[in-house]
């Protein structure tokens, strides 16, 4: 019954979501939103593997800021590639061994890869031998340059995986 008390942040986030959705902060909506937030948190708590608290809010903000800027440049670069009739894209696949282990962190990393310059995360696999998760990344262009795959791996790890490791230690 009181499960939601154990997840105060989830409850607050759902309440904020409700208030944004209805676009009002009248007492009735706050009450209704709080009720819904508590009920939904209680009903879904069993699906969360374990409690997690975002450790360092400023790191998350810095991550989001960087992600926003990268999405802007990603769009411009992909647009240039699409619009230039002489350019033929040279796509390639990269297998990226992940150091991240937390499923939610892996989801964030894979989504980030999909939203940023010229890469989409295509598949995820846990090979039997060393237990690390492999992320299959499809890159839109640059497959003709030597060492392109290694460079891409290093960039993605440095730019996004490193900060995510700090946020989800």
């Amino acid at each position: 019954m009181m499960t939601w008390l154990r997840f105060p942040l989830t409850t607050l986030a759902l309440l904020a979501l409700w208030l944004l959705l209805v676009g009002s902060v009248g007492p009735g909506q706050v009450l209704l939103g709080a009720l819904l937030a508590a009920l939904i948190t209680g009903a879904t708590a069993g699906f969360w593997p374990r409690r997690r608290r975002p450790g360092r809010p400023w790191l998350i903000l810095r991550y989001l800021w960087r992600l926003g800027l990268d999405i802007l440049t990603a769009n411009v670069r992909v647009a240039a590639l699409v619009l230039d009739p002489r350019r033929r894209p040279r796509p390639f696949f990269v297998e990226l061994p992940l150091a991240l282990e937390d499923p939610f962190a892996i989801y964030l990393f894979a989504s980030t890869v999909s939203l940023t310059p010229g890469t989409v995360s295509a598949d995820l696999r846990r090979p039997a031998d060393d237990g690390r998760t492999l992320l299959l990344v499809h890159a839109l262009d640059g497959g003709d340059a030597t060492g392109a795959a290694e460079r891409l791996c290093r960039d993605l790890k440095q730019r996004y995986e490193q900060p995510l490791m700090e946020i989800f230690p």
Partner: protein
Amino acid sequence: MLIDLLVSALVLLGAAFALIGSIGIARLPDFFTRLHGPTKATTLGIGAMLAASSLHFSVQGEGLALHELLVIVFLFMTAPVSANLLAKAALHLRVRSIAAIPRAFRASASDRSQ
């Protein structure tokens, strides 16, 4: 006046990127390269249009319009997931790909018959 200009600029920018995303889908050579269109060009296209909408309705005097913020958040959460599922399905069905698919991720004959 200034707000109107800003709103118009954002709407045009958004429309331009949405158009480029669609051109990309038509022009890129194979399934996996076409996947890049909807996850990128369209996210910024829709993002810019929603920013314009938020700005326009916020200055109408009925308080801040923040629905758009939610749309952006949900869009950015779901677009990569759908791209990922499309790619997974394509790998499973062995859709033609220009880039060589690493061996660990190739669909085997037994996978496919299931």
